[in-house]
């Protein structure tokens, strides 16, 4: 079993916060395919369309037949640890600060042998289950787990480097007024977060679930309005240095596209909250989080955006809301690049229509707040970068991958049928 993680001691104010070091990041374009799969937590290998061979490491051509027709395939993630070593010294600053570090070679049941980081509870020559995860540099790396799990498995220090587990971390949920704030706060409390700050805009008007929110263990309701720069700056001044996970659930949504709205008033609100709100938060909380990417057990670990999957393809019935989410998606990519030096993950959780007042006339399926909250926490525990919640979002991203233009035509046709 793994030694259970201890709650981190209070920070020594005389100690300098470690500058985040990163594992080496330069990989080939072919190797980035691993990162693409790891972003969603998929275990994939390159497969040759010509001869059928699976290969590792990734290359530009098939090592068996030299074909360049290679496609990434989901592969059964089981195998056996055939060789292992514990690194005790390294020229890499990142590994030097984290030794001892277990690495090994795993013979996959699917064929190839692969290099993997190895969990402390995996016995020599044992059967293992592999996962593909992003490391602090954003590279896809394999990690070998005990095949049946182990006690406190998630607390393994090597595994925790690859995840953004909320356990013993301090979370900021940005919008208490959003109907999903209660489910989110509960999910983080259950996951062992030590403090759950929940930002409350406009404390001068009541909202129904405030008492339920305040009753959750470890919740602290704090003033925050993502449309108000001063409010964001003030809160970041207070808690920016102890925000380990930020979940931006602030959202402004109204139905309607361009011509059925006679003005740009709601559009402005949508962009103020959904786009500039994200930017204000990132300007205020981004720098302290990026600086604390290697700050021990409760280092800054992740930034979560909850986005509409219609960021990928406009849903005309919610056309302007979709547009604001497309802009937010683009900003999130910029944020990923800017957070990268700190090793802080940016997790985008995409959802279709949600179970709330603004989607009330829409038929099911709709994503319930509890399902969204589960996906956010699971995505953090798995260290993911992209999560699609619910059938609508999963279906839409699949169609987008098959062809963005085809999806666009389908969205237009569906809007026509709805009329």
């Amino acid at each position, binding site marked *: 079993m793994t030694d259970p993680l201890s709650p981190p001691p209070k920070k020594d104010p005389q100690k300098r916060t470690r500058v985040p070091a990163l594992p080496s990041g330069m990989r080939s374009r072919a190797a980035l395919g691993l990162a693409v799969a790891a972003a969603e937590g998929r275990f994939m290998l390159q497969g040759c369309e010509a001869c059928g061979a699976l290969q590792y490491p990734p290359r530009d051509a098939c090592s068996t037949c030299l074909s360049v027709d290679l496609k990434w395939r989901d592969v059964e993630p089981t195998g056996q640890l055939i060789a292992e070593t514990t690194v005790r010294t390294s020229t890499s600053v990142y590994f030097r600060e984290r030794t001892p570090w277990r690495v090994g070679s795993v013979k996959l049941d699917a064929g190839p042998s692969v290099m993997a980081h190895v969990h402390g509870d995996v016995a020599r020559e044992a059967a293992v289950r592999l996962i593909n995860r992003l490391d602090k540099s954003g590279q896809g790396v394999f990690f070998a787990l005990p095949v049946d799990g182990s006690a406190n498995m998630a607390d393994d220090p090597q595994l925790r480097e690859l995840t953004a587990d909320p356990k013993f971390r301090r979370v900021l949920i940005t919008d208490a007024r959003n109907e999903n704030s209660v489910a989110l706060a509960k999910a983080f409390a259950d996951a062992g977060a030590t403090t759950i700050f929940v930002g409350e805009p*406009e*404390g*001068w*008007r009541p909202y129904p679930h405030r008492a339920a929110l305040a009753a959750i263990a470890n919740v602290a309701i704090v003033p925050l309005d993502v449309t*108000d720069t*001063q409010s964001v700056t003030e809160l970041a001044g207070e808690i920016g240095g102890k925000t380990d996970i930020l979940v931006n659930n602030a959202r402004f949504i109204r139905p309607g596209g361009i011509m059925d709205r006679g003005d740009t*008033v709601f559009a402005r609100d949508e962009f103020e909250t959904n786009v500039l709100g994200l930017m204000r938060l990132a300007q205020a909380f981004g720098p302290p989080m990026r600086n604390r990417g290697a700050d021990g057990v409760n280092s800054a670990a992740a930034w979560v955006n909850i986005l509409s999957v219609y960021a990928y393809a406009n849903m005309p019935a919610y056309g302007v809301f979709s547009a604001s989410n497309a802009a937010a998606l683009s900003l999130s990519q910029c944020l990923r690049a800017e957070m990268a030096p700190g090793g802080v993950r940016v997790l985008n959780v995409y959802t279709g229509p949600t179970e709330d007042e603004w989607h009330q006339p829409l038929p099911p399926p709709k994503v319930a707040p509890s399902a969204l909250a589960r996906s956010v926490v699971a995505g953090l525990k798995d260290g993911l970068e992209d999560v699609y919640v619910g059938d609508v979002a999963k279906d839409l991203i699949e169609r987008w991958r098959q062809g963005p233009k085809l999806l666009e035509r389908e969205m237009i046709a569906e809007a026509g049928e709805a009329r």
Partner: protein
Amino acid sequence: MNAVDIKSADLLAQMAGAIASGSIEVVDLTHTLDQDFPVIILPPEFGQCARFRMEEISAYDHRGPAWKWHNISLCEHTGTHFDAPSHWISGRDIPNGNVDEIPVDRFVGPVCVIDCSAGARQNEDFELTPEIILDWEKSHGPIPADSWVLMRTDWSKRRGAHYLNMRDDGPHSPGPTPDAIRLLVEERGIRGFGTETVGTDAGQGMHYTPPYPAHFILHGAGRYGLQCLNNLDRLPPTGAVIVATPLKIKKGTGSPLRVIALVPGKDA
């Protein structure tokens, strides 16, 4: 120069002197424009009043080395503000009904203050009725034509959620009955009506006939409104003059503004 000119010049000089010496007190009836100051809340499917917002352009830094300034954004009806006749459907065809068209002499005038603070302390839905107005006149004389009438409730001292006082059936705050507003507008011929609450109407004003009687009747008759006023407890029942000059917004239906009162001192 004729005698009247000399007299008014003397008057102004005396006034300036009295303000300088403090024998005429200048009282600020305005709340600070603050991001967190409540605005009126409508059902969410309707358009909403923009909150006051402020973005720094530069602050003696690389964005502008020697100067600091902000972009601000807000609604015409955010914070302490003026309502022009064109704000309401009943006043849509009133000539000169927009803030930029109102003759500037309308922005300076005498004010009567009806103290409803004791009643509002007891009852958050306290109503200003014709009886209360007539009773006030017994003590202070008839309300002069073309004067401002302000309803003092001390509501401006409330903070946070107590200000809108919003509940499941909407906000609860004091205001005038339709008959009270009719008396003031149709019989007394007032210039405008002002309150310390977020609107000139009671929180539950939508349930009167007509709904929102202060807005409907005042603006239908070409009169003005002032709301979110502050410090009304520092005004005498009669004898003060207020200066309320909205921004000159083209076709504007209202405007945030600084409202000040000139109040006779104790020695006057």
